[in-house]
């Protein structure tokens, strides 16, 4: 297949238009964060830095960010361990029920968040009689974060093959040594990519969180939902959104560099 020049150009233009539509709402958020209007008037009647100043003094927002970071860090670490274990088991071993286990891992993202949310809410409250707290949020987040780690690690394991591990064992290294010196270094960037995604997923999750957070547990998305429709707070929400998107460039860039450095350059047609 040889794409004609014109079809390449058309595809390029279509891609450009799609990207423009993808970024238009984000641009509106950026501009609204400077707007003097508290409602959604376009174009903004005037520009101000007031919201940016207020956002950095908003205790509610800063506390919520801290809570979200704590939840996301713990959930990511737990899911890194669990996700790696289950990927090794599924990739390197054959056993009865393997298909069922791999379906089980993806189920928490295949089922809508509200199902996970209400199932856990019901299990904690009605069945176990546990008070909802920040720990119930973490337990819920781990459940759907495992799969992002799993996806990255299992893809890497598939590509790695077992030659190096076998060579290591033949040369006398034990299981730990082989894992530490041969398997883990090859998995590192996949773990980073999976971990970043898990962190992002947990940081932004609202539906499962709503159903599993105890009173007084305010993650950033919960804070945003509480303040989105308050005219005095909505512009501050815009500021925080902009800051988060800008900060997110760093991990995405890192993940891409890591992935890019490892792909073998290939010939393009």
């Amino acid at each position, binding site marked *: 297949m040889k794409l004609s020049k014109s079809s390449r150009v058309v595809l390029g233009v279509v891609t450009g238009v799609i990207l423009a539509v993808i970024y*238009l709402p984000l641009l509106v958020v950026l501009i609204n964060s400077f707007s003097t209007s508290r409602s959604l008037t376009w174009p903004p009647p005037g520009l101000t830095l007031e919201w940016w100043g207020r956002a950095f003094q908003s205790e509610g927002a800063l506390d919520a960010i801290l809570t979200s970071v704590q939840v996301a860090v713990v959930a990511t670490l737990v899911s890194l361990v669990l996700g790696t274990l289950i990927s090794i088991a599924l990739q390197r*071993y054959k056993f009865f029920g393997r298909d069922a286990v791999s379906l089980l891992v993806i189920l928490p993202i295949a089922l809508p968040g509200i199902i996970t949310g209400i199932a856990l809410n019901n299990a904690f409250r009605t069945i176990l009689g546990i008070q909802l707290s920040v720990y119930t949020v973490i337990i819920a987040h781990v459940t759907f974060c495992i799969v992002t780690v799993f996806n990255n690690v299992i893809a890497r394991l598939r590509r790695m093959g077992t030659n190096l591990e076998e060579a290591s064992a033949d040369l006398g290294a034990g299981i730990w040594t082989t894992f530490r010196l041969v398997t883990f270094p090859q998995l590192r960037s996949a773990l980073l990519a999976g971990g970043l995604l898990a962190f992002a997923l947990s940081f932004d999750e609202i539906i499962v969180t709503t159903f599993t957070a105890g009173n007084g547990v305010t993650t950033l998305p919960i804070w945003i939902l509480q303040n989105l429709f308050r005219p005095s707070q909505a512009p501050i929400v815009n500021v925080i959104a902009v800051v988060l998107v800008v900060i997110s460039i760093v991990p995405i860039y890192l993940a891409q560099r890591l992935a890019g450095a490892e792909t073998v350059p290939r010939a393009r047609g």
Partner: protein
Amino acid sequence: MSTESAEKMTNGSSHRASVFLHNHVRVRLALLLSAPLFWLVLVYIAALVALLVTAFWTVDSFTGIVRTDWTLDNVITVLTGSLYQAVTLRTVGIALLVTVVDIVIALPIAFFMAKVASARLQRVLVIAVLMPLWASYLVKAYAWRSVLSHDGIFQWIVQPFGGNTPGYGLPGAIIALSYLWLPYVILPIYAGLERVPNSLLEASGDLGASTWRTLRLIVLPLLWPAIIAGSIFSFSLTLGDYITINIVGGANQMLGNLVFTNVGAANNLPLASAIALIPILIIFVYLTVVRRTGALNSL
């Protein structure tokens, strides 16, 4: 590993454990699987089963506490109530439309990224597609509220051409939901296209197939699992959503809204559980159908 080389290594309990594990595959597997399965089965599956059971319980209308008296009332209400039927149809309709819109948009951009763009541009484009995922879901939904508002930017752009913003309602909800899940659909399709070898496309071209014929007979069959993998995201995420529809959907309700009201304001977990069975059933049918295509491996 041979005995001599094993002896050369440091002795000790960790070494003995290593040798033991090396010789006992089953034990190794059990150790690997126990922690994650403990979590997924004990936390997740147990919760899902409990949800299923709760749907057949009842709530004490006086105290609001769940009573473990068995009843089919909730399930019958959900299956026969006209409200539930209408909302189910609306939700599935929205989810299908959002999925189709996302696939149609994702195909050209993923194709451009994987097969036309230079390696450098490709990297930039992947970042460009990924970055909106880091913007808060709520803020993006709210951004569409501001875009679609009657004095918003959409109205401002289309008014000179005699157009009007769709405002808040089902079209607004479909636009916003398609927007929210688009990256989740683009990425698997892009990854799927990356796996289609260029040599196959060249061979097809060299053998005289037109571009369309190559796309239809070579690319599409290879890409199918990736497309379905993407569709699972957009379909399932839409099926459970209740926040976006609140922000841009006007007064329309989806299944998620009914579940949410019954957990919160109405405090009727058994009825909420019964409603939640609908999306579970739909997703399971969907997963069973697509499982044969191998799509679940490209998630």
